């Protein structure tokens, strides 16, 4: 297979990993928690999208519903659960792991709820665009209109996010709250509300990622675990503290995995991600763009 084709194939899926990494990094920066429940939130939002799509037959309304539900779920999770955990974290031995475990518990609840509401069988998620490769100059490349759509959506979403962060007061407040919460409070900004917003945005991003990835795999309550691991890997590769890094990490991961799949076959895809993660954690734990000393939480 042509190398260029492979790279192109990897870019679109890499964009989805970037979205997932974005969601994880956003939460990490604002609350210092890796939200392992993100997979469950994203999956739940995707299922909501599926229900809406089945009811209305309209892909776009479903997309909106999925993102919106992601936002709402993210906000609810922060207000109900995370605030409690953060307030009660002591210097006890389990303090460092408590948020992680709490998120895992939450993930289990989400997965159970999804099974309860929608059943455990694999279901197909519809797509708005064709999934066969585009034909350019008489050759078919492994990049379909659907892939193009994914890429465009992710680019737009990331650009909007970048704009909000860099150019608006809200973005300024969010960045400041993540870097220096006390100073931000002393500047009259309600940091707790900002945090909720951060989780809400992350939830929306996760929901979007779920809907974008759903057509290419059948969805089931557990099917987003892989997306979580890949998203986490992408975030680590790029640097857990850097949103831009996460985006780059996602693309790098997507392309890297496409290369491996193209030359070695699909069964090694997961192992490659795993090996990449371990290598990055060993050699450069702060990721490509992260700051030094970020290895320990």
């Amino acid at each position, binding site marked *: 297979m042509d190398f260029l084709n492979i790279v192109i194939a990897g870019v679109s899926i890499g964009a989805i990993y970037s979205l997932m990494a974005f969601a994880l990094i956003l939460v990490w920066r604002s609350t210092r928690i890796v939200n392992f429940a993100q997979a469950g939130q994203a999956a739940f939002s995707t299922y909501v999208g599926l229900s809406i799509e089945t009811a209305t037959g309209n892909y776009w309304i479903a997309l909106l519903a999925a993102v919106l539900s992601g936002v709402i779920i993210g906000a609810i999770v922060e207000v109900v659960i995370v605030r409690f955990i953060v307030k009660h974290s002591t210097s006890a031995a389990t303090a460092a792991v408590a948020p992680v475990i709490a998120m895992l518990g939450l993930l289990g609840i989400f997965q159970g709820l999804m099974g309860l509401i929608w059943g455990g069988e694999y279901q197909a998620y519809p797509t708005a665009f064709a999934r066969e490769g585009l034909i350019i100059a008489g050759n078919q490349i492994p990049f379909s209109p659907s892939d193009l759509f994914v890429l465009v959506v992710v680019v737009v979403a990331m650009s909007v996010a970048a704009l909000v962060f860099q150019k608006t007061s809200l973005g300024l407040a969010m960045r400041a709250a993540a870097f220096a919460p006390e100073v931000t409070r002393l*500047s009259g*900004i309600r940091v707790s509300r900002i945090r909720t917003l951060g989780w809400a945005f992350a939830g929306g991003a996760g929901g979007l990622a779920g809907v974008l990835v759903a057509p290419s795999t059948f969805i089931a309550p557990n099917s987003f675990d892989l997306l979580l691991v890949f998203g986490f890997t992408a975030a680590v590769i790029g640097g857990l503290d850097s949103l831009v890094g996460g985006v780059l990490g996602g693309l790098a991961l997507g392309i890297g995995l496409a290369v491996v799949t193209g030359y070695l076959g699909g069964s090694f895809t997961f192992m490659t991600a795993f090996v990449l993660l371990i290598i990055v954690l060993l050699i450069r734990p702060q990721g490509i763009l992260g700051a030094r000393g970020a290895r320990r939480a």
Partner: protein
Amino acid sequence: MTLRVRGLTIDHGAIRALSNATFNIPKGSITAVIGANGAGKSTLLRTISGLKRATSGSILWDEIALDQLQTEQIVRTGIVHVPEGRSVVTELTVAENLALGGVWRQRTNKSDVLAAISEVYQLFPRLAERQKQRADTLSGGERQMLAIGRGLISRPQLLLLDEPSLGLAPLVVEQIFQTLSKLQQSTGMTILLVEQNAMSALRIASQGIVLDQGRVVIADNAKAIMNDTALRHAYLGY
């Protein structure tokens, strides 16, 4: 508006940081709160600004009971706390740090926020030169100016300053204190200045409060404290 502290007692775990403190901060003056390390000065400021809750006693800002409010709300009553340690957000630029001080008023009074920012640049020309630079490229003195500048954006009626001179060269300290004095005279704001550098602080202050191991030793005219050699020897170390 006047700040009235009555019977304020603050505990840090098992340690009593402040015992039964009672004093007034008169409007439109500079009050220096001085004393040795660990005397309870920083804790007092952190409790006024709501970062810490007192064990007992009250803090009244005119009729407003500050001990019932959240930090973010206290800022909105006109009290701004510039904590110790050159508290700037190092990952943001100078301009962004200043803008941060105005975010809470952004929607209601954008033009005044912009006016306040340009006033800060006039007050601290060094900051104007470095507008686009990241805060971590600034020197210690510049960072302190930036922290104070950020506080000023909120147009405070009461400015709480926690050891602004800490770790700075004497010349820089003088410069900052002179600026504070000028600022107070031109705006009429009240300044509560916590300092270990008692001499410099008392020189620009009209009132002094001396703390020792959590107790208010004396609250009096600043000149009187400066002239009281016995007091100075006992509690201020000079």
